[in-house]
Every structure is written in structure tokens, then in C-alpha cells.
């Protein structure tokens, strides 16, 4: 299950999507907008998204977790403006085998950050910055 939305994210939605009565556990990664980034104060983020490809890429991650680990995975990503303290991304993997659930969840968030076409624009007291990988580029 994948969800790309401008609405606030509910982590429980990802849990409900993956858990059955035969699963003994889930591992969840939740990314939140924080008040600083590499020394810059941040008041909020705007996520820009290439929606059809981002959805397709997130779906590929879910399929890959199912194929490689045999585990159910759900990914939620919010876009548009997100204030500090609110949730930007949720990855949830259900499992009766916790070693694999940790591994799969970590792989999914790492791969999402590299391969899902979403970009942060940081709003800071001293300006606005496009974040492209490790680089911050002053925005107009």
C-alpha cells in the first residue's frame, strides 16, 4: 500500500494496511520535519513531487520488500508545505521475524530517499533552499 498526499499522515494507517492476526510485530520508520538542517534553522519544508513516478517508485519498493523478504510493507509520503514537527514519511513493515523486518524497513527508507522523485525546499529565516541530495541551493 502506498499513499502520496498533501494531507497530514496517520502512522496507524500504514500499520493497519500491513498487519494481520498472524503477524507478531511491525517495524516502523517515521520521518518528521525538524527545526534545523545542517546548521540552518528551518521553519517548514515544502516537498515537491513528480507524482506519477513517485507513486510508481514507491509501489516498486513495496513489491521488492515482498519479493526479497516476503514481508508486507506500506509507504506513506506527504508533499506540499509541512510545518516543523509534522510527519513527512512513514514506512511500515510487518513481520514475525524481527531481524528481517528491521532490515527491510531500513532498506525501504534508504532506497526511497535515493530513488523516489521528491525534493525538499527548506524555509529558513535567512532564505529558502532547494535540497538536492547533500546540496542546498539558494532558491528564488
Amino acid at each position, binding site marked *: 500500500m502506498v499513499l502520496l498526499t498533501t494531507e497530514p499522515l496517520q502512522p496507524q494507517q500504514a500499520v493497519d494496511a500491513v498487519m494481520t492476526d498472524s503477524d507478531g510485530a511491525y517495524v516502523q520508520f517515521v520521518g518528521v520535519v525538524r527545526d534545523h538542517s545542517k546548521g540552518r534553522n528551518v521553519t517548514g519544508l515544502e516537498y515537491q513531487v513528480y507524482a506519477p513516478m513517485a507513486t510508481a517508485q514507491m509501489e516498486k519498493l513495496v513489491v521488492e520488500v515482498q519479493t526479497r523478504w516476503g514481508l508486507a510493507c506500506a509507504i506513506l509520503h506527504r508533499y506540499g508545505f509541512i510545518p516543523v514537527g509534522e510527519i513527512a514519511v512513514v514506512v511500515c513493515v510487518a513481520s514475525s521475524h524481527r531481524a528481517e523486518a528491521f532490515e527491510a524497513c531500513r532498506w525501504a527508507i534508504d532506497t526511497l530517499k535515493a530513488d523516489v522523485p521528491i*525534493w525538499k525546499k527548506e524555509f529558513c529565516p535567512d532564505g529558502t533552499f*532547494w535540497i538536492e*541530495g547533500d546540496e542546498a541551493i539558494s532558491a528564488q
Partner: protein
Amino acid sequence: MTIRALFFGHYRDIVPSGEWELTLDAPATVADAATALAASEPRLADLLSRTRVAVGADFATAETPLKDGDELAFLPPMSGG
């Protein structure tokens, strides 16, 4: 052929609408489209060295052939999550 080029990240400050309709002589590749864009807008000259590309919302390469109606996206290093 006519294709639609899409821009993200700081390239949105160069192409504010985020897209550019481009007419190319067939046959043409992703690299040909990038060359045509750089000729029209010098600030797009670094496109292929700074972005990955997707054709039809699928990762592609500079050598990927284009056809009429294709959507070609230039994807700077991503920063979701």
C-alpha cells in the same frame, strides 16, 4: 516530434512552469533534447551532468530514444523522506 520536458528542484527557478514543450527532429535521444534545451537556455547546460532522467516516468539514460509525445523528466538528486 514534440516532447514535454519536466523540471524539478532548483530548475524550477529557471523554468517556473516546470515544463517545456520541445520540438526535435526524429530520430532523437534524451541527449539531443538536453542539447536543444541548453541552446535555448544556457542555465540548463548542466542538466545531464546534474540530473538523472526518466522517460514516461521510468528511469532512462542519455541514449534512450524519444518518440513523439514522450514526457522527459530531469531529476536532480532526490531529497524525499
